[in-house]
């Protein structure tokens, strides 16, 4: 009960932090919306038929899952920076010195950062109807599940990377060299199944591609053209594997925090 209450308290803290930094929400959701509108309408006449919604808005519809991934990514990055601040400020040391299992503290951080990230990605989902995709109820539920798994994976990866670096500046460098390329190579902007062979492989082995493909497939009611039936198992593996990696890395953090 105590570990559960500790987890709830830490999750509530992340929500409070988010509510007191409205600029974070604007930055997280605003950028994908701007990209969605700018790229979607800008390329509307030259790229079409990528997602079968029967009108010229199809490129924007194709972009939507990638933009939802971007919203989750940005929110995760902000949350991961708070982990660095917690460590540098000593909050994490005080938490880890307490009786709550270190695993529950990591889990709380994943949930605390992940829930707002998930919510912010979900804010973009209604655009599916605006863009003419009109997913059915089961498709929508699957899309929500894919977004949830995407968020768990990306939050866990961000937190693990944040734990490994020494400063927020170093984390920004990691973001530019690891996280942004992961997102750019996730097939968010291009149909990977039609890309050159090398790019197709690069996209297929990128873990962020897996949930993006599952999300796109769910919305369209189709199997992933790039990954086929493997998309969902890979998506689940990404979420579970990343979560275990974060718990393993940060859960052993007592030594690192104090040493």
């Amino acid at each position, binding site marked *: 009960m105590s570990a559960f209450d500790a987890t709830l308290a830490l999750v509530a803290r992340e929500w409070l932090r988010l509510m007191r930094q409205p600029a974070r929400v604007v930055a997280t959701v605003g950028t994908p919306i701007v990209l969605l509108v700018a790229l979607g309408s800008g390329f509307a006449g030259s790229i079409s038929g990528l997602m079968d919604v029967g009108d010229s808005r199809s490129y924007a519809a194709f972009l939507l899952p990638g933009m939802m991934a971007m919203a989750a990514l940005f929110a995760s990055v902000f949350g991961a920076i708070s982990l660095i601040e917690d460590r540098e400020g000593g909050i994490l040391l*005080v938490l880890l*010195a307490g009786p709550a299992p270190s695993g529950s503290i990591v889990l709380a951080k994943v949930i605390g950062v992940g829930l707002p990230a998930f919510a912010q990605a979900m804010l973009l989902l209604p655009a599916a109807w605006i863009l003419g995709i009109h997913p059915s109820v089961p498709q929508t539920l699957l899309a929500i599940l894919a977004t949830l798994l995407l968020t768990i994976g990306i939050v866990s990866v961000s937190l693990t990377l944040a734990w490994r670096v020494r400063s927020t500046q170093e984390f920004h460098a990691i973001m530019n060299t690891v996280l942004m390329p992961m997102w750019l190579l996730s097939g968010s902007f291009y149909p990977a199944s039609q890309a050159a062979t090398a790019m197709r492989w690069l996209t297929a082995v990128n873990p962020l591609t897996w949930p993006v493909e599952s999300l796109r497939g769910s919305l369209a009611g189709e199997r992933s053209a790039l990954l086929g039936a493997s998309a969902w198992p890979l998506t689940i593996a990404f979420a579970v594997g990343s979560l275990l990696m974060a718990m393993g890395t940060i859960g052993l953090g007592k030594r690192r925090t104090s040493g």
Partner: protein
Amino acid sequence: MIRLEAVTKSYPNQRQQRPALSDLSLRIDSGEIIAVVGPNGAGKSTLLGLLSGVLKPTSGSVSGSPRCSVVLQRTALDHLLTVRENAVLFARVYGVPAPERGKRLDEVAKITGLTDRLDERVGSLSGGLARRADLLRAMMVGPELLILDEPAAGLDRESHRAIIDTLDELRRSMGVAIVLSTHDLADAARADRVLLLREGVLVASGAPSELVEGLGYSVVLEPAGDGGEIRCDRDEAQMHAAELLAQGVSYAVRDASLEDVYDGLMGEAR
């Protein structure tokens, strides 16, 4: 309450050859205030880490596991949250039952002088108030042992005094044992016991008055000019003073203090 027996702590990848802490034995009882002093790198933070359970000894043993709470040099609070929100957050993480939280918050807020500031965000508080808020946070978990790493470092005189007075009051009213590391020997002199560490070794420990008595002199005369000192008993002081006056040398006189103990012991290492 907690006992360290022949504890040695080494860190992997440590640059220096010697352990951070060597063969240290120590016992801490309820309601004691213990000051840990020594230069940077003496092993103070390592000792605090061992007492809090965050560090494990390389050899030796730590017995007893009092409920402890830690206050670091940095304010370990979320600056976006209010004092009350921070206090409740840490109390929940440390498993303090809901009915106890409000009562304890009122009690500790009164001692720390923060009753009227509970709903202010930590980020809007001055350095001294934020440090007191951190003390409040630490006391919310109802510790038997409170561990503080230079709790008054970097504060102005008034805030500094307020923190040290608050520690006295916490011990008096709540019976908590307090271990603090400090570079301020005036703070250390107010403790029940002082531990002097040098290069990971405990070189002296005892009540401040005992340590000063162990110096072998009780008065220090400081003649103007050459900066030298005459250390002597109170009886001899008048004679030395008369000699200085006969030579036309003015002087200052002061009681021997913990500073002399520190300088004497640390000077041996220089």
